[in-house]
């Protein structure tokens, strides 16, 4: 533990802060933007006597917030290419294909959601856009997870700034696809938990409670699968997840949060379940990020080598600080208006 703290504190403050902001953006994108994709999953899987109500609830829940939530992704990309340009260049070369596919998903998800809202409201048209929205909501996180999985394998090789591991090999493998599924299910789980809070109707709430419980089980099973596969497929991250001093404490806390979410769902403490689920996802990402340390893209691109000089990071951090002064109150206001305790209840 002391070694790790010493290493980390050897990083310049600006680098450390930039990493912190990048990580925070990742967590926020996962728990906010990720859940919007999860909503699309439940739109696709809507069933039973209340299928229509389920879809309507999902539409109301993500309508006002998806565009703002989506900006966290752009923010991450911008921060990555500003603060760690070689990492961005390597990732967008090695993962060109899954990233391009993810972009297509992003384009189709966003536009079909909007078009559904403003096109003719008859059933056929509405359903056609809804179908496209739902399918692209499933496809996009899958691709995002594949990219995360590919980074984790340590298979992206870079020499003298050129990617030498090809354009297929790092991601076209079982492990990245397993991570893709894990990401998808995690987002679906988050969405189901949020929707239990946002549902007005008791029966509808029970629908999503069931979905949250089931998807929690699948998330658990997939987490175990990914963990077992990582032994062979992602040895470096595996070592980070098991052999560092913080490894087991972190795993245990994550497990406690997961169990807590399940318990809260079971006992119908939906607000508590929402908080715990967010914590669970944040902890999973923390474990992943710490396991990657000291790399951004293992095994060839480390944080220190990729970091832009301090005279770049400092003004960027000041820019971020000023930006946050405007952003944070605006964002809080947005969520207070649409997600506050009475937010959903006030009919538009």
């Amino acid at each position, binding site marked *: 533990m002391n070694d790790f703290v010493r290493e980390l504190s050897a990083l310049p403050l600006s680098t450390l802060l930039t990493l912190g902001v990048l990580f925070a953006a990742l967590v926020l994108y996962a728990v906010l933007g990720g859940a919007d994709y999860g909503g699309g999953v439940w739109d696709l899987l809507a069933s039973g006597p209340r299928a229509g109500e389920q879809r309507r609830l999902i539409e109301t829940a993500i*309508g*006002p917030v998806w*565009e*703002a939530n*989506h*900006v966290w992704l*752009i*923010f991450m990309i*911008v*921060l990555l*290419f*500003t*603060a760690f*340009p070689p990492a*961005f*260049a*390597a*990732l*967008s*070369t090695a993962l*060109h294909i899954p*990233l*391009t596919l993810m*972009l*297509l998903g*992003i*384009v*189709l998800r*966003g*536009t079909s959601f*909007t*078009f559904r809202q*403003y*096109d*003719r409201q008859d059933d056929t048209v509405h359903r056609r856009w809804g179908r496209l929205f739902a399918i692209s909501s499933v496809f996009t996180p899958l691709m995002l997870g594949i990219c995360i999985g590919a980074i984790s394998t340590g298979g992206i090789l870079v020499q003298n*700034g*050129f*990617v030498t591991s090809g*354009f297929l090999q790092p991601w076209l493998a079982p492990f990245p696809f397993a991570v893709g599924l894990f990401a998808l299910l995690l987002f679906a789980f988050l969405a189901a938990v949020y929707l239990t809070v946002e549902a007005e109707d008791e029966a509808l709430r029970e629908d999503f409670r069931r979905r949250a419980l089931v998807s929690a089980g699948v998330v658990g099973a997939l987490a175990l699968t990914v963990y077992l596969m990582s032994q062979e497929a992602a040895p470096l991250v595996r070592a980070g997840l098991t052999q560092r001093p913080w490894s087991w404490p972190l795993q245990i806390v994550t497990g406690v949060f997961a169990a807590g979410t399940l318990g809260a769902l079971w006992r119908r403490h939906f607000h508590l379940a929402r908080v715990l689920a967010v914590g669970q996802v944040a902890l999973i990402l923390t474990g992943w990020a710490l396991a990657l340390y000291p790399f951004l893209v293992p095994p060839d691109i480390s944080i220190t080598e990729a970091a*832009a*000089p301090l*005279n*770049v990071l400092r*003004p*960027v951090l000041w*820019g*971020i600080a000023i*930006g946050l002064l*405007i*952003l944070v109150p*605006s*964002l809080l*206001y*947005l969520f207070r*208006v*649409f997600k506050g305790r009475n*937010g959903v209840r*006030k*009919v*538009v």
Partner: protein
Amino acid sequence: MTDLFAARSQMAMSLGFHIIFAAVGVALPLLMVIAEALWLKTKDETYRTLAQQWAKGTAILFAVGAVSGTVLSFELGLLWPRFMDFAGAIIGLPFALEGFAFFVEAIFLAIYLYGWKRVPPAWHLFAGVMVSLAGAASAIFVVSVNGWMNSPTGFRIEGGKAVDIEPIVAMFNPAWVPEAIHMTIAAYAATAFAVAGVHAFLLKRDHDNLFHRHALAIALVVGGITAILQPLSGDLNARHLAHQQPRKLAALEGQFKTEKGAPLRIGGLPNEKTRETPYALEIPYGLSLLAFHDPQAEVKGLEEWPKADYPPVAVVHIAFQIMVGCGMAMAAVGVVALILAWRNRHRLGRWSLPDQTWFLRTLVLAAPLGFIAIEAGWTVTEVGRQPFIIAGIMRTAEAVTLVPHLTIPLITFTLVYLFLAFVVVFLLLRQFRQSPRIVRDRAGDITVGESAAARAKAAGDAD
């Protein structure tokens, strides 16, 4: 097709697509906010209906702009990783600031669109103001990046790497201010002209409809003012180019020889082989006068640079002619609108909408000019910088990715964007057909009627 050409085509297509939605995202919220402010001031419901209709258009176009903008931020790396490896640290700051502006725009647009009944009227108006300010800010920040590619500053090169990076100096590069002013005004003028054209067309058939009259009045004021101002900002850019980007100026003027008292060429077809620009109407001393405000000033011709550094001269020259032609036509329409409105004021004692049929017809014809000018102007600045991605520093061919088969994403994105364009046009036409009919009767009372589409449907049902 080479991979380099495919990458350039994909970037050009993505930018050419996004720029339309980005421009509307800057300007339409302003029209919407003006309408809402007039509603709060006059209590005339027509204005509120108008703000709501324009908000629907903003919602559709902003969503497409948001996702196509995301595509661009990724494409910087997907297509030009060597460029980003070199330049990311230098020009990341304005990108980050643009990110915040985009964030604020998305947040307040959501409050605006979904909050009519959830937030108090003053807050709602405030949200609209924030949307339109943030839209303009994000355009201004992102243009700084393009300005830097045209006039790179704020670093030194040592062993192929950028050192002594000063992000703030890079952000405030010499091209930023003239380009940002020109682009922002262009966004307002193009959008307002397009909106004016649509409402002029509908007003021609429905002459008493206050909905279209109010809409046209707002669009004409914004479009007219900005179209008249734009040539001034064009002059600022010409002088900037003359001093900072002489190679681009020579290309866009088809100026091959370095000469004192250079003429201004209108039209003409530059020929890179003979190094002449025949078929042009030449105005003596015109270029020297415009670029340096001195008829005897020396203008550098392309002969100053090796042939390998020529941009595609004909493309740049023709695009420039198109941009200026459209801009001048729009400024003329703006002046005519001003004269007609002023004459109405003289005659009726108050400012009043010029609604002569010939004028409405002119507005319909002028509707696409602004967007044509934006696309042409963008071509001038981007193609005019070729064969460099960072002027004088890095060639586009050095920046391109090593990923093969780039025609595949090019074709895929082209098809997707064509599909989106088709759907957007279809949805907007539907919105126009659903415009409400609002008229004032003899007693001065306002009645809100059904839309043309609803009336047609009712007539159809009656049969």
